[in-house]
């Protein structure tokens, strides 16, 4: 599981995740994700390279999500695959962390 970050226009922090967000992948990124969430208010989580998303991987999104939202910040999920979308929707996460497949719409939602 790989994690990379980039500073985007508008004060947005982009986090790109790459690989399997299973119990092993989640263990690898949890600390980094929580550190990032503790220091930003506009977070874009790019899931387009995530191949599997399990409940432990969901946890790796939900805990940072709570941290950002609890301080009045915003967070969006960007470009997950169709199957990853089905996991997010089955878990009802999409009602709190909106999903966007268009980058312009994703960044606009964070403003």
């Amino acid at each position, binding site marked *: 599981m790989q994690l990379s970050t980039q500073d985007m226009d508008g004060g947005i922090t982009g986090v790109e995740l790459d690989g399997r967000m299973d119990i092993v992948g989640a263990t690898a990124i949890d600390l980094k994700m929580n550190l990032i969430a503790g220091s930003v208010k506009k977070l874009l989580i790019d899931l387009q390279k995530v191949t599997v998303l399990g409940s432990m991987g969901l946890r790796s999104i*939900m*805990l940072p999500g709570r941290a950002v*939202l609890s301080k009045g910040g915003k967070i969006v999920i960007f470009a997950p695959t169709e*199957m990853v979308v089905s996991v997010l929707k089955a878990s*009802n996460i999409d*009602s709190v962390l909106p999903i966007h497949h268009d980058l312009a719409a994703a960044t606009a939602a964070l403003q």
Partner: protein
Amino acid sequence: MNATILLTETMHTEGTVKPTSRLTLKSQLDDMAMLWAWVAAIVAEYAIPPDTAFGIHLCLEEAISNVIRHGYSSQPGHILTVDCTSPNARELFFTVEDQAPPFDPLALSLIEELPAPAPEDLLRPGGRGILLMRKFASTIAYQRLENGNRGGNRLTIGFVLPQ
């Protein structure tokens, strides 16, 4: 001891179906990589389409992480097995067995029957593994095993293969 993979032919004998393939794992995260290699070989052998393969990966991830985290309390040194059986061309079953204390993950399915959570609760982690298994598997069944003093748990997860 490394994880072992035993490959045998599917055998139909008086109504019993022997495993097509068996994987033995230790209760540690390092062994999960062997699981994915094993699943990838099965996906290729049966020409399983990507969406069904995704469901198999997801359900086995949930089942085995449940055994490691809950059944064995994240303690190394324990063993679990995963069997793959194909009783016919339309179905594939994965059976996860352990020697842990009684633990019925399906009992947690009561979570699904609770009222819809408040928005602030939607980001509370936990309790989604079984919900996801029920969504992506065709069938799922739990059985408590009584093997002398050891006992164990068996979770059988079924998938219908597109024709």
